[in-house]
């Protein structure tokens, strides 16, 4: 019952505004892929295109070899879970879950049996006769999940399903969603703006911006090796410094910025071009008070307390940087320090025209 999804060069317009540009995305059978990005990035548009609520201007959408591009929504056989649950207010919990089965011409007895079994799986069987209005947010989303899963769709899609729940429940629910998805092996597309949520439950994540796909990879790769400055900033590489290579010695490369030189191994970073950007998270810059340290001279500004570290706003010749310092020695604003990049926590990006 599990099928691959394939989007080929899909573009979409609202009127004359281009909201999605040339998106190609392949989701393997049984895989859970998240579309991640800020509002307006095109992730919801993509979901609505796959669901059939929108029609692409160009490109094609295939599900397990079936061409969905022009197929009406009700014939696509896709399970959808909405942000606001979208339960039928005038039907009981059981009838909500059985609705899709009814459309498939199943007998009332069979519908009841399957819907009850599904409610059992999400732990809501005792509430089968309730009205949706009498349920809590978490329970509503479980009903919505059961309703989408019970039709055994080849593709399951989630549109910010946890945004209306409180933080604790959100974490519990996402684990539950992942477990159900895993055990069913249903190909899934999950739309969210929450990076942690996307990274924690996805096999792969597609990071989108302004209607374009920025990077599509496993969370581990996105987190450690972003492909461009947008993704780098998105996943927390707040310091991005332009470097110039000044010497090459076999595998090792020496590069320089604002009076600081670094030696980097191409075995770790891959081929390093003559000019590149070095990106680090605040954790990747060591705040050193040792004046002989090999690092970027900086003057500390505002200090904030993060719980696991102190964070400093720093002024350097290379611009404004953010670094985390140890909890044992809080430093005052105005202190002159060296910022030492830790090579294992840095990544290299190609220079881009403008920032």
């Amino acid at each position, binding site marked *: 019952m599990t099928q691959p999804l394939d989007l080929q060069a899909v573009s979409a317009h609202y009127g004359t505004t281009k909201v999605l540009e040339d998106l190609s995305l392949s989701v393997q059978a049984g895989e859970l892929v998240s579309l991640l990005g800020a509002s307006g990035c095109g992730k919801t548009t993509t979901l609505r295109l796959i669901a059939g609520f929108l029609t692409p201007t160009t490109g094609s959408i295939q599900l397990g070899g079936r061409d969905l591009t022009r197929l009406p929504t009700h*014939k696509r056989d896709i399970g959808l879970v909405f942000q606001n649950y979208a*339960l039928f207010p005038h039907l009981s919990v059981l009838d909500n879950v059985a609705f*899709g089965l009814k459309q498939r011409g199943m007998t009332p007895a069979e519908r009841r049996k399957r819907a009850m079994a599904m409610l059992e799986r999400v732990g809501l069987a005792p509430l089968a006769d309730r009205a949706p209005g009498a349920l809590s947010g978490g329970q509503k989303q479980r009903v919505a999940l059961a309703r989408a899963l019970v039709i055994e769709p080849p593709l399951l899609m989630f549109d910010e399903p946890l945004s209306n729940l409180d933080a604790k429940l959100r974490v519990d629910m996402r684990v539950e969603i992942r477990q159900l998805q895993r055990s069913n092996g249903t190909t899934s597309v999950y739309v969210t703006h929450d990076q942690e949520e996307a990274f924690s439950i996805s096999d792969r994540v597609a990071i989108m911006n302004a209607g374009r796909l920025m990077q599509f990879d496993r969370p581990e790769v996105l987190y450690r090796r972003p492909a461009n400055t947008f993704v780098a900033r998105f996943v927390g590489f707040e310091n991005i410094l332009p470097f110039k290579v000044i010497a090459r010695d076999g595998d090792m490369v020496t590069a320089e910025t604002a009076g600081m030189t670094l030696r980097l191994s191409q075995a770790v970073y891959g081929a390093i071009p003559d000019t590149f950007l070095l990106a680090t998270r605040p954790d990747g810059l060591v705040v050193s008070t040792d004046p002989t340290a090999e690092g970027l001279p900086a003057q500390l500004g505002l200090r904030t307390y993060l719980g696991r570290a102190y964070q400093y706003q720093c002024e350097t010749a290379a611009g404004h940087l953010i670094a985390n310092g140890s909890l044992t020695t809080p430093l005052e604003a105005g202190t002159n320090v060296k910022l030492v990049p830790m090579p294992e926590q840095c990544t290299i990006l190609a220079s881009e025209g403008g920032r």
Partner: protein
Amino acid sequence: MSDRPHFLLIAVAALVYLFLMLPLVIVVGAALSDTTYLTFPPQGLSLRWFENIFEISAFRRTIITSLQIALLGTLIALLIGIPAAYALNRFRIELPKWLGTLFVLPILVPEIVFGFALLKSFTVGTGAPIFLSLLIGHTLIVLPYVVRVISASLASFDFSIEEAAISLGSAPVKTFFTIVLPNVRAGVIAAFILAFITSLNDVSVSLFLTGPGISTLPIQILAHVEQFFDPTVASVSVLLMFLTVAVMAVVERTLGLTFLAK
């Protein structure tokens, strides 16, 4: 602080109610009078003027015409108004703003002007039968109420519910009937009642569109008052009043009146 309302508040409320109810009391009283002219307080008690309504054939006919027009006009307005309200709400972003205004135009134009325009352009222009003219006129004046009331109901309807049903395999038209309509049922009933009562009570538009042989009850009442001064008019009014109260009572018992206030 006492939980009981201030006596001044009670007094003012009582005065307001008295002011509202007094004309009705006078009408009921006059209707029951045994005299051959309108008078209050009633002199003698009699139901003869109620019998008289049904003895005058013009009243019999116009009551039936009024009910027919109100019922048919309301049903046609619902048939046009429900899809219109649905489209206006469902495609609010895509549709031009003036389209919504178009549907309320008939109540923005003074009814007298509207009736006259219909007479000139339709009845005289096409030579259409009077009943048809009346029906079209009434459909048009109740349509804005239907569109507005059902729009209000749809405004709080979450269209992702409809999308959920479609994604589960229900065809769009079927979804409208099984999912959308049951959730705006209260709005539809409210629109029906409002439209029915508006049509039943309409004078201005009917005045222009009635003609030889066919008239509506309010127009017949006017015509009767011009010639006779007997309590029949009061009896008809009481009859209309009780009809309205009966409709409201049925609604109250089945749905509760609170939804009308929504």
